[in-house]
C-alpha cells in the first residue's frame, strides 16, 4: 500500500478524477440546453468529463510505472508548516475585522513564525513591529483603505 502513496502520477490522476467527477456530476444540477442555446450546465459538464478522462489516463500511466515509483523516496509530505501557516492565515482573516490590523499582524507573524527551522522570537518581534508600522503607513494612512488599526479605533 505504501508503494502506491509514493506514486505522484497515480495520486495526481486520482485527484483529477475526483474533481472531474464533482464538476461533471455537479453540472447535472444545471440546465444543459442544446449546443445552439447552451445552458449553464453544458460547458462544465463537458470539461468535467474531459478532466475525468485525463485523470484516468494519468493514473493509468502511474500504475504502469508503479514498480519505478516504489523505488523512489516517496513524496515526503511535511504537513507541520502547512497546518501552522493555514491556522495563522485563517486566524488573521477572522481577527482582522473585529480586532483590527495590529492584532491580526501580531497573530500572523508569531504563529507562522513557529514553522521556521531556526526560530528567533526577538527578531520576529522586530519584524512584527516593522510590518505593523509599514502596513499602517502604506494602507491605512497612505492609501486610506478601510481598515481599523485597533479594536477601539
Amino acid at each position, binding site marked *: 500500500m505504501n508503494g502506491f502513496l509514493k506514486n505522484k502520477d497515480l495520486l495526481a490522476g486520482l485527484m483529477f478524477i475526483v474533481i472531474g467527477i464533482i464538476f461533471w456530476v455537479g453540472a447535472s444540477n444545471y440546465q444543459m440546453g442544446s449546443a445552439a*442555446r447552451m445552458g449553464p450546465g453544458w460547458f462544465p459538464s463537458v470539461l468535467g468529463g474531459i478532466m475525468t478522462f485525463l485523470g484516468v489516463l494519468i493514473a493509468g500511466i502511474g500504475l504502469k510505472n508503479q514498480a519505478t515509483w516504489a523505488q523512489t523516496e516517496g*513524496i515526503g509530505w511535511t504537513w507541520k508548516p502547512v497546518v501552522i501557516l493555514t491556522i495563522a492565515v485563517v486566524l488573521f482573516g477572522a481577527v482582522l475585522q473585529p480586532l483590527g490590523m495590529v492584532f491580526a499582524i501580531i497573530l500572523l507573524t508569531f504563529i507562522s513564525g513557529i514553522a521556521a527551522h531556526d526560530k528567533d522570537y526577538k527578531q520576529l518581534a522586530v*519584524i512584527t513591529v516593522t510590518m505593523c508600522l509599514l502596513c499602517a503607513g502604506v494602507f491605512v494612512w497612505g492609501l486610506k483603505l478601510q481598515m481599523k488599526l485597533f479594536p477601539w479605533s
Partner: protein
Amino acid sequence: MDLINNLSLGFGVALTFTNLLYAFIGCLLGTLIGVLPGIGPVATIAMLLPTTYALPPVSALIMLAGIYYGAQYGGSTTAILVNLPGESSSVVTALDGYQMARQGRAGAALGIAAIGSFIAGSFSTLLVAAFAPPLSEAALKFGPADYFSLMVLGLIAAIVLAHGSVLKAIAMIILGVVMGLVGTDVNSGVARYSFDVPELTDGIGFVGVAMGIFGIGEILINLEKGESREVFTAKVGKLMPTAQDFKDTWGAITRGTLLGSVLGILPGGGALLASFASYSFEKKWAGKDADPPFGKGNIRGVAAPESANNAGAQTSFIPLLTLGIPPNAVMALMVGAMTIHNFQPGPQVITSNPQLFWGLIASMWVGNAMLVVLNLPLIGMWVQLLKIPYRLLYPMILVFCCIGVYTVNNTTFDVWIIAAFGVIGYIFAKLECEAAPLLLGFILGPMMEENLRRALLLSRGSPSVFYERPISAVMLFLSVVLLIILALPAIRKKRDETFVED
C-alpha cells in the same frame, strides 16, 4: 507619421510628473519585492496590486507595468547574487550570472543585465507601438468562434512551457477553466458550484488564487527545503561593464532582443520561453570554444537571456492589448488587475481610449529607463535585502499577501481563500502539477465559455463555424499541430531536456 504622433501622445501622458512618479514607485516596489528570493512576478504583482487601487486608471496601469518590470529585474538580481531565481524566467540567468558573481564579477553581470534589458526594452516598445494598431484593427474582424479558437491555441501553447507531464498540464488547464466558471453564470443567472456559500456566487477571486498558490504555496515548499543560501555580498565589484564586455555582448544582446521579441508575441510565450530559447541559442551560436565556457561565467550567457526576457515581457503585451487575450500567467494577472480598474483590454481600447493605450506603451519605455537608473545605484540596498534570513522573510510575505488580498473586496472570505489555495498549491507542487497553466485557464475560462456560446448561437448549434471561418480554422489547425508535436517522443525528450538543462 502616425507612429510618431501616437508615441508623442503617449509620452505626453507618461511624462507628466505624477505618472513618472507612479512609474518610479512601481519599479521600486516591484524590484523590492521581486528581489526577495522565492517570489516571482505573479506573486509580486498580486501582492502589490492594492497599492494601485486609489489611483486613476491610467496611473494605476502605468504603475502596474512598472511593478512588472521591477519584479522581472529583481528576479534577475536574485538569480545572479544568490543563485536562487525568484521566477522561472531567470533560471538561465543564474547559470552564468552566479558563476560570474563567484568570480567577483557580480557587478558586471548586474550591469550588463540592466543595460541589455534596457536596449531590449527600448526596441520592443517600438515594436509594440508599431504592431499594436494594425493588429487591433485586424482583431475587430475576429468573431466569437475565432476568439474561442485563439484561446484554445493559447492554452495549448501554455502546455509547451509547463514542466513535466503534458497530460497533467492539460488537466491543470481544464481545472483552471472550470474553477473560473464557479459563481453566477452571466447568461442564466444560475449560481454554479457555489455550494450555497454566498461569497462564492461572485466567483473565486483571481488575486486569492494567484497569491494562495504562488505566494503561500511557494512558502510552504521553501520551508520544507530548509535554508541553503549563499549570498555573494563581499564584493559586488564595478557595476559598469568594461569595454571588452560590451564588445563581447553586443551581438548577444541583439540576438536576444530579436528572439525575445518574436517569442513574446506568440500565444503561450513571454519572458520564460524567450529567456530559455535565447540562452540555448546563444550557447549554440558561441560553439564549443566559448571562453569562458557557458555555465562557467560567460557574460553572454547573462546578456542574451536577460535581453530576451525583457523583450518578451514587453511584446507579450501585444496580444493582451490588441486581442484582450493574455498569453501567459503574468498577463492573465494583468487582465485581472485591469478589470479591477474597470478597464477591459481588447481591440476597442486603442480607439476608445487612445490616451491610456499610448500612455501605457510610452510608460513601458519610461519603466525600462527607470530600471537602469534605479537599480544600478540601489544595488547595495538589494544586497542588504537578500541578507534577510528566510525565517523572517516569510512572515513578512504572509502579511503582505493577507492584507493585499483582503483589500481587494474588504472581505474576510478572500483571506480564507488564500489559506485554502496555499494548501492546494502545496499539494500541486508535491504531485508535480504545475500551476501556471491553471492560472491562465482560470482567467480565460469565462471568456471561452462566453465566446463558445455566442459562436454556437450564431451558427444555430453547428460546430462547422469553427472550421469554416478561416481565422478560426488556422488557430485550431495550429493547436492540433502543436499537440501532435508535443506527443512525438523525440520532441518530448527535447522538451524535458530543456527544462532540466544544466
